[in-house]
């Protein structure tokens, strides 16, 4: 019984971080209709930033939550403004295939850039916070997971609230729903794209900062979480930020609880069986809108 409870809690904790990664991916898709294949690489970058901040500035891993997202915002904003925008403008009349290819190139470039800069080894942060564990009887939770869960939920809710209430948030949603109509009422859609990309990367930066005490960092680490976040986004409903949030929690739970009943290798299979079933019976995703 305690094993089941333990695995449920673990699933919630891991799932909440998956949610954060997926939420940012879903935002980019929802607003700009582009699939960001470099998403995992940006996660890897934010993980390296967190690692370096801890190692060279001696910061507490949780302080990264305040530090890394603003840096990632600037990187995201600039990527959209200076790299993607011109491709996007040329393709505004059709599906942005060029952007898709561009982000794929960016993915390969960034992974190899960090291979050259940081080397191929797995790295971890050394901090006493990392190994602290809450022990209640035969029940173990690391503080990194507890804080990771709390922070992920808080950031996700804050972000959803922002999209719903704030003026910029509403402009983002408006652009996502109908770019031309939004332009008509005075929304500068390219500026909204810049901000959206920046915000997406900021949320991803928070995920990276929370992940670093839990997972080792190496140049290809983005692939581990990147693929998973695509599955989550499709499962939750393409472009639905709320759907991505729940998708992450569900995948985390399947992975953790499922592994107690079937071999760990098969939980991957279970995830993809559910994935295929959702695509078949509800192509818009569990929380996606049926319209369009």
């Amino acid at each position, binding site marked *: 019984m305690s094993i089941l409870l333990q695995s449920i809690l673990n699933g919630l904790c891991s799932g909440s971080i998956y949610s954060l990664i997926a939420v940012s991916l879903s935002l980019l898709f929802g607003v700009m209709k582009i699939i960001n294949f470099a998403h995992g690489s940006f996660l890897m970058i934010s993980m390296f930033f967190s690692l370096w901040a801890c190692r060279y500035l001696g910061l507490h891993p949780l302080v990264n939550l305040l530090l890394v997202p603003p840096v990632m915002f600037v990187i995201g904003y600039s990527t959209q403004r200076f790299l993607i925008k011109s491709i996007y403008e040329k393709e505004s009349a059709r599906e942005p295939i060029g952007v898709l290819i561009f982000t794929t190139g960016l993915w390969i470039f960034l992974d190899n850039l960090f291979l050259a800069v940081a080397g191929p080894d797995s790295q971890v942060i050394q901090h006493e916070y990392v190994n602290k*564990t809450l022990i209640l009887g035969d029940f173990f939770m690391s503080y990194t997971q507890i804080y990771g869960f709390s922070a992920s939920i808080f950031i996700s809710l804050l972000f959803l609230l922002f999209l719903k209430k704030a003026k910029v948030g509403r402009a983002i949603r408006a652009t996502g729903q109908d770019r031309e109509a939004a332009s008509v009422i005075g929304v500068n859609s390219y500026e909204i794209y810049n901000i959206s990309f920046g915000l997406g990367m900021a949320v991803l930066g928070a995920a990276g900062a929370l992940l670093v005490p839990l997972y080792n960092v190496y140049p290809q680490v983005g692939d581990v979480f990147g693929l998973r976040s695509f599955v989550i986004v499709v499962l939750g409903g393409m472009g639905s930020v709320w759907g991505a949030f729940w998708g992450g929690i569900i995948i985390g739970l399947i992975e*953790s609880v499922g592994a107690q009943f079937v*071999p760990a290798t098969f939980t*991957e299979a279970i995830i993809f069986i559910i994935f295929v079933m959702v695509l078949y019976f509800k192509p818009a995703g569990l929380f996606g809108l049926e319209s369009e």
Partner: protein
Amino acid sequence: MKNNSNKIMILVSCVLACVLGVSADSLAASKIKIGYLIPLSGTAAAPIGQDMSKGTHLAVKHINDLGGIKSMGGAQLELVEVDTHGDPKAGMTEAERLINVEKVPVIIGAYQSGVTFPSTAVAEKYKIPWIVDLAAKAEITERGFKYVFRPVQIPSSGNADSVVDFVKYISDKTGKKPKRLAFVYENTDWGQDLAKTVRRRFPKEMGMEIVLDEAYPPNSPDLKPLVIKIKGRNPDLISVTGYTSDAIQMHKLFEQMQVNAMAIIGSAAGQADRTFIPSVGMKGTNYTYTTNGWAGYESCVTTPFAKKYWDDFNAAHKYEPTEFTVCAYGAVWILKDALERAQKAEPEPIREALTKTSIMNTDLTKLLGFNVKFDAKGQNPYKRFAMQQIYNGKHRTIWPEEVAVKDFSPTWPVPKWSDRK
């Protein structure tokens, strides 16, 4: 007239030079060409290939400096090195070229199983002996070939054999026998290969009960569910087969979740990696057992022969030798031993000499950590993996006894997490 005599002088000196040149050549020791196939570029395996190449070149240099092959009048070894790019097809054509164009009587190579497996078939066809340096694929010596020899490597199942043999040894020695076995392994050919041996031997030979037998996908985003599962089965012995990234994750979780077992044993990959201890930390790695393909400096660099190898390598390349460079270095010395007895640089006598190889308790075997001879398949039955226990940030070799370090005795069973400081 002056002009003429000049011409004559030039002519004379030319003739003299030719004569002297020829005679100098015939006076100098003859050369023995050795074909060497190794990936040096264009593959992820290239860094290890380059390491091995450095070991091989150093061995050739040392042998030549010490007077070459004495039974052939001090003949010097000459390495004909070819880059395979890790490509099986390149390996096969280059083997063909080495044999037919370069006329080498013997080949060493080609590190990777994927290249070594098909290329050795080419050498077998032309009846040219081949010394396999590091390829571990079992089938390389299972084809009934007469010209393939594997002195410094065993199939990967041998890695798991060492785990079982060690657990038997230490259980007998301490009288504390584990009963419940959990083994987890990455879901690849390599992981499955090792698991097969563990699954077969532990229950049969030690009467152990398997409480968990589980493959996991390599590079998992979350290994905690697996560790929760291991903990829930309450095993006495945990065998972990995985590469660095997963091993680091898993051992950090063992510490956090306080998974207590009599021992946790790794398989010469993740837990033997140089980044393992700094990543997991001193407390988390203390008492961890792992196999290792080479027993290490403390155990093996004990003779002037080994010291010379270690120092010269270090001086030339500014980093310490590894298991790979030691194996490469040793392979050439094993060939040297055979050449001395063959007395002719021709394929048949070399093959004949290799089959009769018996290098027991010499400087070379002390460096390698095992004796060398070949069974009917061309496999060295003495090669095995050493067992190490990590203590205070160092891998200490504890088994087999002949390579164990003197000032350290293993802790078995390991203390509970709550009892460690």
